[in-house]
């Protein structure tokens, strides 16, 4: 472990799937993740935003080492990840953990919450389990007596707290949260996000926060990356992106955020939702982009640093940093 290395450094990740139509069908190659690089610092949160099917969950699994990328590399604390399923990989799970979208599915319905929170301690042979389980439950805002409960006896928010307690049991350095709040009631979402921020202060882990909700990401993240069809199209400070999104896709995402009492001009996306099996040429967003030019259909824009330090992958955003506000 090198102390100067970033907690997690992923370079040019590519993940392909073969999609087969029927038995003996022609295999179609789908690039779920197509050249994603990201970096997570200790104690900081990177938000990853995009619509469903854009590859953000796959990115999360690659970063955690649950899957091996077809190209590119992931290093954790300066070391490459061991291969999934190996003993070294299993031991490393104590250092990196995941929080799932559906807490009920992620919990074993036949075991009590206490048993399940204790399970990572058991797996990684960490002693003093009873006391630690009590501490963990308190840390996530559950009552210690709820250790006796079964998942179906808890509310959705409480279940997600239990999943968090289990994920934090071994005090991991990295936490990947894959849509952790989207299955929860709106009133509970804010509580869980606040809890996440509190827990980060206490445990100091780096977080990859995956969501389709740009506002949720802004609340918890120190940096935000916007993904479209397997690629990061924009990355920067959350507030900066929300106030002045540079990529046309990021702009549509921002404009989709409802502002009570204020009328905004929504950008309605044209065209079909993207199909990763049939990726458009050039910039993948060009068929739906209100400002696309002939160049966009021809050449894929690279993710480059702009003058203000933001990373953007758009021909126009680089050519003319003061893109007209409303071109459609």
């Amino acid at each position: 472990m090198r102390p100067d290395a970033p907690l997690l450094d992923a370079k040019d990740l590519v993940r392909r799937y073969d999609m087969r139509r029927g038995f003996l069908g022609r295999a179609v190659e789908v690039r779920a993740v197509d050249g994603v690089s990201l970096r997570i610092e200790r104690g900081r949160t990177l938000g990853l935003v995009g619509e469903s099917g854009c590859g953000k969950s796959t990115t999360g699994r690659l970063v955690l080492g649950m899957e091996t990328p077809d190209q590119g590399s992931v290093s954790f604390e300066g070391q490459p990840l061991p291969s999934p399923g190996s003993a070294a990989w299993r031991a490393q799970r104590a250092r990196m953990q995941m929080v799932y979208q559906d807490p009920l599915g992620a919990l074993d319905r036949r075991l009590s919450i206490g048993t399940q929170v204790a399970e990572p301690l058991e797996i990684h042979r960490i002693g003093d389990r009873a006391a630690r389980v009590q501490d963990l439950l308190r840390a996530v805002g559950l009552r210690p007596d709820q250790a006796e409960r079964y998942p179906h006896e808890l509310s959705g928010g409480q279940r997600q707290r239990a999943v968090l307690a289990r994920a934090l049991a071994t005090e991991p350095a990295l936490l990947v949260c894959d849509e952790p709040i989207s299955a929860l009631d709106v009133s509970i979402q804010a509580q869980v996000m606040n809890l996440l921020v509190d827990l980060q202060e206490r445990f100091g882990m780096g977080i990859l926060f995956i969501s389709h909700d740009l506002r949720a990401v802004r609340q918890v993240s120190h940096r935000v990356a916007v993904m479209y069809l397997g690629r990061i199209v924009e990355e920067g400070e959350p507030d900066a992106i929300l106030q002045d999104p540079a990529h046309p896709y990021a702009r549509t995402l921002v404009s989709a955020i409802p502002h009570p009492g204020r009328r905004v001009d929504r950008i309605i996306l044209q065209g079909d939702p993207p199909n990763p099996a049939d990726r458009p040429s050039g910039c993948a967003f060009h068929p739906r982009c209100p400002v696309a030019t002939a160049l966009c259909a021809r050449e894929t824009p690279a993710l480059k640093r702009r003058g203000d330090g933001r990373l953007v992958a758009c021909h126009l955003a680089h050519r003319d940093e003061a893109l007209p506000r409303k071109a459609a």
Partner: protein
Amino acid sequence: MPEGLVTVATVVPPQPKRASVPLLVRLGGAWLLAMLAVALLADVIAPYGYTALDLRNRLSPPVTLGGSWLHPLGTDELGRDVLARLIYSIRTSLLIAFGATIIGAVVGTTLGFLAAHFRGLVEQAVLALVDFSASLPFLILALAVLAFFGNSLVLLVCLLGLHAWERYARIARGLALAAGAQGYAAAVRGLGATPWRIYGRHVLPNIASTLIVSMTLAFPEVILLESGLSFLGLGVQPPETSLGSMVGYGREYLTRAPWILLAPAVTIVLTTLSVSLIGDWLRDRLDPTLR
């Protein structure tokens, strides 16, 4: 068989409420308990040894047909007591059926888990085997194996154990895949658990109710297969006796001494009926997705 039935996650939360058990199922349970008691206590309750001859009382009819209490269910043409033979036959048949059902469940579940865990070639191989055994009537396969390898009790139990293994394999694979895709199994794997822990501590207990229901449904089929093979003289070999071989043997005396055949035949029917009733009831109660 429709493949879809295994994709539904069938996790049954603990049910505190107690539905009333139908009368027929209770009767079936009582009969089955009686059979188990008979099997366990065979040495104690059997009035004679199952090979003991009583040459003075050959083909003696049962009490109900005017026979003596010496042989309540009558005797066969060697003067062997039908009741004693029935008791030992129950023991043999139940032993074989239990052994075979457990072997089938263990083999099938293990292969199903292997297929779900390794995917790829292992899975294809298991699925091809499933196709293979689903494509041949089991009786024919069993007869072929017996022809090639000759007969022994161990072989018979193992052979019958292969019956219905593909059902457990299908169920175990389907449910393990469902649990692994997004569910608790994937989560536990992410905690760093070994496959032993994932499958032994989490997946197996969660699918146990489904497997137990399948075992209850397969059990009478195994009894029927064993008795069929023994009836044909290809299953349990003399001097050992089973329900099926008693029927096969008694067939020779169908006209003169039908009781030799009727006692084991009724026992087979009542036992399979009891287990089927319990199995159907369990399925409807625990796991309606198994159809």
